[in-house]
């Protein structure tokens, strides 16, 4: 039995050296298949049959892991989904900052107007409310920091996904990928890609009633 294990380890080392330290999933499956075939030839007792069954289970799990990983479409996640997340979150921060600056402009203008008002009670009331507006604008800084934290986490996920893809040479399940790409529910487009109302009106008007 030792010679079987040693042979397995030698093959493992050979493949790892050939691939620069990596073992691709298909190669791992072949190795385990060879191991199980050799063990099967060697074994004859009930106890050894149990060992053989356990090794077969490992082989099945490896095969299932390969299928599961392909159905997660990790290449699509790395190439499309994560960049989309980064772009969308950046848009959120930018939009919030723009809106906050408009609100602050308005508050500053309101405060400036109070210099033309003689009644101090009214001036105080206006200033109190203008101050509340400024206080509420604090949210934008906090939101920006929270988004930055999320983006850092996505950087880590991106790195892990790429490592997984390269280590196991995972390809996406083409049917799963095609189904995910066909979805009509995409949410708002990024500012740079967003068509104007006029462009939408043109498309709308070009769709012929007979096409409906």
């Amino acid at each position: 039995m030792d010679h079987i294990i040693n042979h397995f380890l030698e093959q493992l080392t050979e493949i790892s050296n050939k691939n620069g330290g990596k073992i691709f999933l298909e190669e791992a499956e072949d190795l385990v298949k060879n191991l199980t075939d050799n063990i099967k030839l060697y074994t004859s007792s009930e106890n050894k049959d149990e060992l053989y069954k356990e090794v077969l289970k490992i082989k099945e799990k490896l095969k299932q892991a390969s299928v599961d990983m392909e159905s997660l479409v990790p290449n699509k996640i790395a190439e499309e989904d994560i960049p989309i997340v980064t772009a969308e979150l950046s848009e959120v921060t930018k939009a919030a900052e723009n809106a906050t600056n408009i609100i602050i402009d308005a508050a500053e203008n309101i405060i400036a107007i109070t210099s033309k008002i003689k009644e101090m009670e009214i001036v105080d009331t206006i200033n109190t409310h203008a101050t509340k507006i400024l206080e509420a604008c604090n949210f934008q800084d906090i939101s920006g920091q929270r988004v930055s934290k999320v983006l850092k986490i996505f950087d880590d996920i991106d790195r892990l996904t790429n490592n997984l893809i390269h280590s196991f040479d995972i390809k996406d399940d083409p049917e799963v990928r095609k189904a995910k790409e066909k979805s009509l529910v995409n949410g708002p487009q990024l500012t740079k890609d967003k068509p104007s109302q006029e462009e939408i009106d043109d498309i709308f008007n070009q769709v012929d009633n007979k096409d409906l």
Partner: protein
Amino acid sequence: MSVDKNMSILVVDDYKTMIRIIKNLLNQLGFRNIHEATNGELALEKIKNNKIDLVISDWNMEPMSGLDLLKEVRKDEKYQSLPFIMITAESKVDNVIAAKKAGVNNYIIKPFNADTLKQKLINVLGEF
């Protein structure tokens, strides 16, 4: 001794919008001589090249954080007693302790309101 509202205040934050908010709140309290910087390094330059009477700084900035700015400021004998208030989202006990050890005069957590800012200014500068 009453507080001179013409004193020169340096507001440091990498979010320009936050600088606007703090500046407006300071204006509401009567302080109008406000300088700005968007990170610790630029703030340090302003402190060395201008007469600054109070620093109000964020923590999380690149390339120099508010904590590092505070430490640099306190290294110089000239600025040992320069009032320094941290306004930051960093709210863990360790942060507050680190800032206190580095010589901060007061610590405000974001989001904050005008009353809190006023109270901390009074704590640091005296009644106004």
